[in-house]
């Protein structure tokens, strides 16, 4: 029997008072609190979390993508992007999560208009590479990103490999090299 989350992190109350019109949800696991926002509210909530001095999350540790395909419990969406925030002045950590649902089949690399988020690179410049990684691995694109290219695989890689419907062993990408023999020089 899982214990219900205790939403006692002070940031929850501050954000709820500030964004009374937004649909906000919260969850907590082992003392780590996560705020779940709608994709449209993400950017202004993030700006508030950095600029308000009661929050002062001045450091973005990481941006992570998650694919919930086949997850045992129901989730609000297929994909999630998690922002791992850290406040150095207040020595605090907080997570912000956004759920997205694809509108196209996810086995290719087509640009899916439903898999778009506002980039937070204008708030934390350090978001640039993690967002590129989320784009590379999950195909979630970021609006207003200064340089949204793949970062780990190459430009024409035929998939977003951390999507759960991409086979673990790939679709033959690791086999497609020409064979060099001793006469090659």
């Amino acid at each position, binding site marked *: 029997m899982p214990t219900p989350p205790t939403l006692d992190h002070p940031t929850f109350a501050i954000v709820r008072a500030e964004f009374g019109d937004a649909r906000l949800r919260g969850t907590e696991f082992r003392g780590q609190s996560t705020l779940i926002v709608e994709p449209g509210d993400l950017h202004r909530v993030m700006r508030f979390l950095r600029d308000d001095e009661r929050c002062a999350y001045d450091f973005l540790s990481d941006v992570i993508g998650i694919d919930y395909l086949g997850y045992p419990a129901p989730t609000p969406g297929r994909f999630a992007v998690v922002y791992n925030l850290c406040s150095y002045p207040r020595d605090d950590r907080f997570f912000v999560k956004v759920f997205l649902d694809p509108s196209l089949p996810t086995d290719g690399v087509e640009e899916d208009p439903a898999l778009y988020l506002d980039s937070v690179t204008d708030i934390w410049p350090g978001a640039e590479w993690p967002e590129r990684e989320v784009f590379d691995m999950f195909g979630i694109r970021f609006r207003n990103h200064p340089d949204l290219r793949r970062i780990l*695989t190459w430009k024409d890689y035929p998939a977003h490999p951390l999507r759960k419907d991409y086979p673990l062993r790939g679709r033959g990408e690791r086999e497609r*090299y020409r064979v*060099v023999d001793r006469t090659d020089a």
Partner: protein
Amino acid sequence: MGIEQALPAQGFLATTLQRFINFSRRSALWPMPFATACCGIELMATASSRYDLARFGMERMSFSPRQADLLIVAGRVGIKMMPVLQRIYQQMTEPRWVISMGACASTGGVFDTYATVQGVDQFIPVDVYVPGCPPRPEMLLEGIRAIRRHIDEEGLPPKGGTRVPLQIAIEPTHEVSPQPAVGLTVGAT
């Protein structure tokens, strides 16, 4: 393979010259370290003073493939790294040999995923496989010595005309030679 083609195969000059050339080749095998993962650490340990690769004429790790004779692939090779490895192999001049060091370079190891090449021998010729995760320096030295033994016996021109991958697999040797005692105290005294 230059001079080898210019000489008759069995004359006195050729056999003496062959012994001399083989001696020179095996005594100054310059390795090109292609260390992409944890096996590279063991390769560095092999090169450092306790195991002392320099005993075998490998005084200098050749970071330029054009001056290297022995490519040591030490570590995982990712799908983006494979073309780089092939390019480095192509840049090496004959005679050249390749050691595949560790489970990952030889088979992909535990990394059976889309991103790891499952054995570099699929795409470049490999002469010696050194098993282990990582192989101990003794094992790597055994692999290098296998290549040295081969060079000593190699024909000039090579038997059969062309060189082929040697496909030598080193047997695991887990008997650790006695380690010198070091006067180290750990923690407060």
